[in-house]
């Protein structure tokens, strides 16, 4: 009997051993990728007295992603976007990494936990979504442009984004408040509809930084909620989204964040048009004032095989004493995919910062011409 037991146990043991050896591929997979973007810019504007009219810029990231799945079907993993630049980015994004988060997903949805973009950044639809070149109104133009705030000018909305993703209104392209540490949930897509929500306890906490300060100039308890719709009928594609953001101001002298954005894009045989309207209301304005701000975008693009071109436009108004700080930016860009992952592009941006009054020192009117190459690996 003892021998019998030994034999049968051995048999099952061998079967278990063998089958678990065959399933060793279930361990999480680690993928390394990234990109290098080189740009040469030629620029000129009203505030560039005694400045050089050309410059180079190099942006590099190494992305590590981990993807696994448990036997019960729970997906899990992580995304780490390492900044591999020679110097820190002017935008104020993280020095070592711009995003690091863990995710858990399944048929019930997906959670993303960590320093990451808001859910509405991924769900929103506006003209920048169809931009080619370096990214149109969300491209590289602002690295080469003078923001009037550095010359005694005021606040402007310079990208089609709600307050957290936009960052400071006193610099363009600021990335100090996106990628805060947050919890994000995305629902699965039901009949084309997808819902997403994010929550950050603090408007500037990232990575290891965790502040408890609930007074002063910052914002806290920030909620982002977005609803996206996507569908395709033969050659026609359509997407639309409505997104909103709410947050508490730490100071009673500043209005809470309450902003929303609605946008849509329509595509047909490589042609696409997109537009959006965003309203910040009185977000972040002095409580004593009744100032509002808003923006709208419009764009068109054409994708023909390896070639793509786009025109995107952003117009924004920030109410200030005596009128509006008006900003507009027209960006025309084109790219050509030489090989998968190797894409040279050109882009020209015509922008105008316009404060109320004639001949104000903070006005700035200029253009940027970019020639670049993006290498993704």
């Amino acid at each position, binding site marked *: 009997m003892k021998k019998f037991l030994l034999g049968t146990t051995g048999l099952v043991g061998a079967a278990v051993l063998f089958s678990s050896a065959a399933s060793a591929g279930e361990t999480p997979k680690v993928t390394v990728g990234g990109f290098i973007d080189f740009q040469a810019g030629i620029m000129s504007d009203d505030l560039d007295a005694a400045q050089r009219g050309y410059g180079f810029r190099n942006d590099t990231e190494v992305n590590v992603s981990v993807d696994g799945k448990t036997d019960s079907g729970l997906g899990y993993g992580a995304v780490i976007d390492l900044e591999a630049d020679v110097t820190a980015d002017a935008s104020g994004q993280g020095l070592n990494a711009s995003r690091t988060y863990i995710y858990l997903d399944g*048929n019930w949805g997906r959670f993303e936990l960590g320093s990451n973009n808001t859910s509405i950044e991924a769900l929103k639809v506006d003209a920048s979504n169809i931009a080619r070149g370096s990214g149109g109104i969300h491209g590289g133009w602002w690295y080469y442009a003078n923001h009037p705030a550095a010359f005694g000018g005021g606040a402007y909305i310079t990208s089609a984004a709600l307050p957290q993703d936009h960052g400071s209104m006193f610099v363009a392209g600021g990335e100090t408040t996106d990628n805060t540490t947050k919890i994000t949930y995305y629902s699965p897509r039901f009949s084309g509809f997808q819902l997403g929500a994010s929550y950050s306890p603090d408007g500037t906490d990232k990575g290891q930084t965790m502040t408890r300060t609930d007074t002063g100039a910052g914002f806290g308890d920030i909620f982002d909620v977005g609803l996206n719709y996507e569908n395709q009928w033969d050659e026609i594609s359509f997407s639309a989204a409505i997104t909103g953001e709410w947050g508490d101001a730490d100071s009673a002298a500043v209005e809470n964040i309450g902003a929303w954005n609605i946008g849509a894009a329509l595509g047909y045989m490589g042609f696409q048009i997109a537009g959006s309207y965003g309203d910040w209301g009185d977000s972040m304005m002095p409580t004593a004032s009744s100032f509002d701000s808003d923006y709208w975008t419009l764009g068109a693009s054409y994708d023909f095989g390896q070639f793509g071109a786009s025109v995107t436009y952003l117009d924004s108004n920030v109410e200030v004493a005596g009128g509006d700080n008006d900003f507009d930016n027209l960006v025309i860009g084109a790219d050509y995919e030489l090989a998968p992952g190797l894409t040279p592009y050109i882009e020209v941006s015509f922008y105008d910062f316009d404060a109320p009054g004639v001949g104000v020192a903070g006005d700035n009117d200029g253009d940027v011409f970019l020639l670049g190459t993006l290498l993704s690996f």
Partner: protein
Amino acid sequence: MKIFRSLFFPLLGAVFLLSACDNTGGEASYPKRAKDTRREQYGKLTGEGGLFGLNRKEEEGGGASPIGVNSFLWRATLDTLAFMPLTSADPFGGVIITDWYEDPATPGERFKVTALILDKNLRADGIKVSLFRQKKDDSGHWRDSEVNASTARDLENTILTRARQLRVRQSS
């Protein structure tokens, strides 16, 4: 804002509970940030798998499978019994018969397994394993011997676990 705060965490909890049910009917595809989507339209030098190519999708096995029975159970059974020599494997009828196998650890005792896959669906009663056992008597002849009933059940469970792993991997 207070109402958001009081609703958010119960809502999170509810969603975690939802994870228990598998058939919500939605499409489990999740958005990427706009920057990544834009960059990805240009492809990658190293292809979708990235630099080390560790993430390349395995070829999809399902669809119009020529196998007459559940393909996950079929592959799981073959995987599980692969340590024994096979005499017959009929993918249309779903019959796998092994040859006699003598475990080197227990000489004088050999086994033979017949596995029947009974269903096109992946279900617990879709697999039937029969186990035969012989012992060598003093004169050197093989004689049939009794089999512990739970051993065949254990083998079935091993096959089902393996089939589930295969299915999970394919749906990822």
